[in-house]
């Protein structure tokens, strides 16, 4: 079955400026009409994966995260800790029903673990 990378996310200090940049450069479209006000990015292609942009404020550190689909977020978080990772944000259920946690890998890179609401075990 595998654990695919389903989405990328850019953490940005100025999300509007960033999305305007990629919109002009690549024609990416942004839609924030959802309960989190989350800037979902549609690359406009059937290949590759889409992404999103999350705000971190003027003092944050911009970076790119990958979101990996899992079937059990809590179990994966526990396993990540046992393997030397760290939990940054424990499992949370978003308003749209997706479940999400953020962990740090052994390099200190943050990684999203997600279980879309449509996934059945």
């Amino acid at each position, binding site marked *: 079955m595998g654990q695919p990378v389903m989405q990328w996310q850019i953490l940005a200090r100025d*999300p509007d400026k960033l999305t305007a940049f990629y919109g002009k450069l690549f024609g990416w479209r942004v839609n*924030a009409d959802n*309960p*989190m*006000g*989350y800037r979902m990015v549609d690359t406009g292609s059937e290949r590759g994966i889409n992404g999103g942009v*999350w*705000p*971190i*404020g003027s*003092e*944050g*550190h911009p970076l790119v995260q990958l979101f990996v689909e899992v079937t059990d977020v809590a179990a994966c978080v526990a396993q990540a800790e046992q393997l030397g990772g*760290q*939990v*940054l*944000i*424990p499992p*949370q*259920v*978003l*308003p*749209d*029903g997706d479940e999400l946690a953020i962990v*740090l890998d052994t390099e200190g890179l*943050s990684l999203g673990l997600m279980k879309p*609401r449509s996934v059945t075990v």
Partner: protein
Amino acid sequence: MKAHVLTDAAPPSDRFRRVLQEELARRCARNPRYSLRAFARYLSIDHSTLSQLLRGRRRFTSRTIERVGKRLSLSPDMITQFVDREREPTESWTSRELRQLSRDAALSLAEWHHHAILELTRLASFKPDVRWISRVLDVPVDDVNMAITRLARLGLLDMRSRTTWVDAAGNAEARIDTLSVRAISALAGRARTLVGMQGGPPAHYSATTVAVKTTTGRRIAERVEQFRREIAELLEREGGDRDQVYCLELAFFPVADLTTTES
């Protein structure tokens, strides 16, 4: 009470809880990604236990103070003092203010809307929708999302299901103690907008500056502290659906520094 102007000579951390709160705050300031869980692992304490200890919902045992104190490289004398002080049944009102300050520092949450978001989750009308929160609090969506991230990272907000968010930040008494000076200043602006609105919810906002004897000041402080406890008990007993979020500010503090001997 928000007595941030203190002339008391008490040490800034005369309770072990404040030591931990300040240490956590320092680590968070150095590393924005630092979390309560990471701190718990460092201290070899279960993270939910640490959360309860920091929020004042659980008392420290002597063994915990000794073990954690050694982990933080505190001196044996200081550890002994903390063990003895933790056994004291009551706190003075000035040490309560110090506890509030270190809690503020530990939370690293100077913006009022963090606390307001947590309180909103207690309303029957709460909607787990960032756009709704943004509109209700008149705070930009991005600021709400950043606040939610911080709250979740610190274990203060639990987005338990798609319809339920839970405030894990503490009981009523702890919640009364949670605002920093900066948050209060920002809320004053909010008060100017909402207080006195025609047909608006009940509200009261008043302040005065008075000259008093020190002994009278102490009696007033005791009355304010008693009132604060009564409000906390009222909040704990409150039943039924909540439908509004208020700012409760209790402030009584000296504004003149009369300790200087310079002519």
